[in-house]
């Protein structure tokens, strides 16, 4: 065994725990999330006879008696309650009303052994649109339904991609809002964090400890305590408004809570450390002689800052911005508690689908769209920074 080979094995063994961790807790859940966004096997699985019977239906003529016989047969065969539950959820999610319809039909079907007239059980079975939903659901085990719905698109009855009517869904609006708010928070963090990091890097000893401690403090307090504190400060009768009114700067309370301003303030507060620390660590690494050198070469302090310190600190600003932006994308408790109705971010929609509606497909699809959009932004950033590196 060569020395080189042994060295490689040792280094492989050293990174193995990390690799394993990444696979188990990152790659695997990510993969299953993506899979759940596009996989749709439940109808095919629960309704095998109908899958056959519906495959050559043109979806516009009236439902045939074979179709309804096959469907009745399938319903009779389902004994797995959880599979049935999944089927109901799948169909009801495509068309509201399916839940009661299918439960009622199943009870009727189970009551007799022979053929049954579905329209007599519920007249909705004469309606083509319910059969269309079943036909679409059984047509394939993979679907783009969730992914399309995540960006407010759907397939119409002829199968072409169409926009969901305005007012029925707002995923696109909320996605764009999520990115805009993350951007606003990032900008606010730069504006406050950069000067702060500069001051912290220029002092030493207890002063530096104090400044860094102050910015780290929000990380050490629980989210709810912090949010409650913001509530006390920002509400109409809160500290800020009563101070402003006491000073006579305003007669009416300024609206600071339940709107975008409040959310951006609170999120900036929480995420500031992620901006300050990278900038700070880059700044303390810059040799102390560079600014005097620039001055001795004739640069006014402002120009020296722009030409020397700023470009060197940019690396910290960029990594800080990435950290803040990415974290901000996932926020939903702070917007939920401090924001108004128009400040909800995409995570709250994802949370609704996952924990509320148990619609894992939609949750996965929205997560995937968020991930892809973020990756696209990251690629743009890489492109830009690569070009900067190449340029002399």
């Amino acid at each position, binding site marked *: 065994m060569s020395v080189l080979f042994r060295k490689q094995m040792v280094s492989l063994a050293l990174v193995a725990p990390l690799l394993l961790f990444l696979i188990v807790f990152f790659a695997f859940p990510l993969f299953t999330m993506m899979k759940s966004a596009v996989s749709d096997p439940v109808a095919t699985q629960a309704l095998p006879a109908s899958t056959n019977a519906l495959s050559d239906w043109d979806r516009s003529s009236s439902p045939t008696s074979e179709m309804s016989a096959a469907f009745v047969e399938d319903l009779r065969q389902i004994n797995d309650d959880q599979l049935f539950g999944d089927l109901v959820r799948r169909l009801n999610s495509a068309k509201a009303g399916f839940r009661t319809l299918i439960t009622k039909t199943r009870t009727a079907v189970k009551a007799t052994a022979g053929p049954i007239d579905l329209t007599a059980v519920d007249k909705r079975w004469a309606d083509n649109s319910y059969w269309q939903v079943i036909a679409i659901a059984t047509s394939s085990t993979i679907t783009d339904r969730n992914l399309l719905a995540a960006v407010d698109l759907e397939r119409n009855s002829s199968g072409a991609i169409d926009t969901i009517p305005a007012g029925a869904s707002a995923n696109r609006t909320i996605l764009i809002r999520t990115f805009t708010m993350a951007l606003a928070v990032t900008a606010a963090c730069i504006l406050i964090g950069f000067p702060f990091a500069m001051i912290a890097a220029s002092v030493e000893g207890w002063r530096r400890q104090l400044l860094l401690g102050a910015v780290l403090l929000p990380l050490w307090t629980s989210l709810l305590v912090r949010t409650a504190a913001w509530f006390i400060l920002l509400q109409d009768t809160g500290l800020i408004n009563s101070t402003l009114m006491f000073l006579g700067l305003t007669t009416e309370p300024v609206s600071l809570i339940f709107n975008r301003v409040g959310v951006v303030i609170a999120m900036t507060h929480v995420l500031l450390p992620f901006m300050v620390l990278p900038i700070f660590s880059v700044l303390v690494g810059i040799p102390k002689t560079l600014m005097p050198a620039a001055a001795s070469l004739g640069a006014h302090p402002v120009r020296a800052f722009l030409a020397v310190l700023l470009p060197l600190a940019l690396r910290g600003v960029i990594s800080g911005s990435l950290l803040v932006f990415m974290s901000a994308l996932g926020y939903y408790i702070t917007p939920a508690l401090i924001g108004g109705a128009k400040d909800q971010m995409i995570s709250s929609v994802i949370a609704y689908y996952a924990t509320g509606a*148990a619609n894992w497909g939609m949750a996965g699809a929205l997560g995937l769209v968020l991930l892809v959009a973020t990756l696209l932004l990251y690629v743009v950033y890489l492109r830009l920074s690569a070009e900067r590196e190449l340029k002399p």
Partner: protein
Amino acid sequence: MKISKAVLFACSLLAINVTAVEARDLTVVSWGGNYQDAQRKIYFEPFAKESGKPLLDESWDGGYGVLQAKVKAGVPNWDAVQVEAEELALGCADGIYEKIDWNKLGGKDKFLPDAVGDCGVGAIVWSTGISYDGDKLKQAPASWADFWDTEKFPGKRGLRKGAKYALEFALMADGVAPKEVYTVLATPEGVDRAFKKLDALKPNIVWWEAGAQPLQLLSSGEVVMTTAYNGRISGLNRTEGKHFGFVFPGSIYAIDSWVILKDSPNKDAAMDFIAFTSKPDNQAKLPEFIAYGLPNIEAGKLVPEKFQAELPTAPDNLKGAISLDIDFWTDNSEALTQRFNAWLAQ
């Protein structure tokens, strides 16, 4: 929709503290806050003493997906859970709950008819309605029309964020009789009408999500009136000397039930626990702490006179109140939630 077991497994690994599968103490889950404090005093601690085995209690914020994930992941780490009517209906259809042994409970006829189910036993009857601060408002609001009337009662209103309740209340404010609400809401025109009515109030609405929030909003004066859960109102009035009022006419009541998660390792203990909480003597102690109605008919009669009037189940309070339509919401929840979110975002 088929849920990949792997997703659920991964989710429960990440989000939920998975405890070891081996013998674990009976775990009871309820809604937290002063309600759970009361439950701890009158149910959890006495039951642990009587059975001689420890009982763990946790709290949750609802969400059918949470329960489903726990059951699908294998052996759940919760046993008895208090759920809302919608979660009861969904889960019972999906088979994620154990069947209830009504013999242990003394028979179905001992309970209000609405509180009896294959998978769940009613725990409380609770109401959602208008609440206001009696110290601040000279004239009390009496109806949803008042709630919508920003000229008569200037100021902001708190509403629970979600389509459920908001749409019903909007229709009542628009003049629909309480008994007709769900008939109207079942039509597309009815849904449009509800959203249109909500539009009118939208600039004045502060949305809340957790049950304790409306009380804070009311205390701080951030809103002039808000929807709230009736039990929390009388609880706060007693402990903090407030004079918050609750408007029963036009309120919507619903039943929360105890369920046992499928394949719970402590199934029998959980059943015994539910039986314990359903005994008339034990249940009758609840209204002293929190003004929720009692599903056990016998227990309802044991409640002292002075607390009776505050309960949603008091005959006077039932007049003009309606029951939450579970079938409507299990069918339409997803579609209406999507539309509601879209409406919010506009």
